[in-house]
């Protein structure tokens, strides 16, 4: 029931783009995205509440495909500050977070 994220880890150079995928074997009713920087608490990025929804701020955006039971997080023109572990999460009876994706941006 825990969503599966891919890739598990990715290393980017500044300015490159990345996509993080989140898929679930169960129906997704909403998707949350959080980022956790090393040694810090996870911080909320965005919530997608319905299929087909797309959201974004700055150069981080996300989409939600309810039929495919998956969501993707898009990071464009990555900056050093984007480094961290990204988690997706969904709620179905209880809250489930994904396995996490470690993203490292290097100069």
């Amino acid at each position: 029931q825990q969503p599966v994220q891919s890739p598990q880890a990715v290393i980017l150079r500044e300015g490159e783009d990345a996509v993080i995928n989140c898929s679930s074997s169960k129906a997704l009713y909403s998707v949350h995205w959080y980022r956790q920087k090393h040694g810090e608490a996870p911080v909320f990025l965005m919530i997608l509440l319905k299929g087909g929804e797309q959201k974004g701020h700055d150069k981080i955006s996300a989409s939600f495909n309810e039929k495919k039971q998956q969501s993707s997080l898009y990071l464009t023109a990555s900056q050093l500050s984007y480094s961290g572990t990204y988690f997706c999460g969904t709620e179905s009876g209880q809250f489930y977070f994904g396995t996490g994706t470690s993203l490292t941006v290097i100069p």
Partner: protein
Amino acid sequence: DVKVTQSSRYLVKRTGEKVFLECVQDMDHENMFWYRQDPGLGLRLIYFSYDVKMKEKGDIPEGYSVSREKKERFSLILESASTNQTSMYLCASRRSRISKAYEQYFGPGTRLTVT
């Protein structure tokens, strides 16, 4: 700003000890959560509470219990600590479950080592 605080950042306990992890939030949130975080496993839900004196089991409740006597405080108890409970423990709170649009706010975490 919502603030979620946890009683300790680092804790070292011996096998068999009873361990209390405290979490306090200052925004009158109804829901509170306890997670453990292990490399490669993400965040796994131990227990959660939708309101005072309520508690629900999450994915991995074995070896843990919780207490929520006051709205702002949610305690995680390890009845008899074991080495496989060595982990990072994260507490979170959320305004309520009425809307799925409410996000969770996390505390800084407690890194517990059981020797």
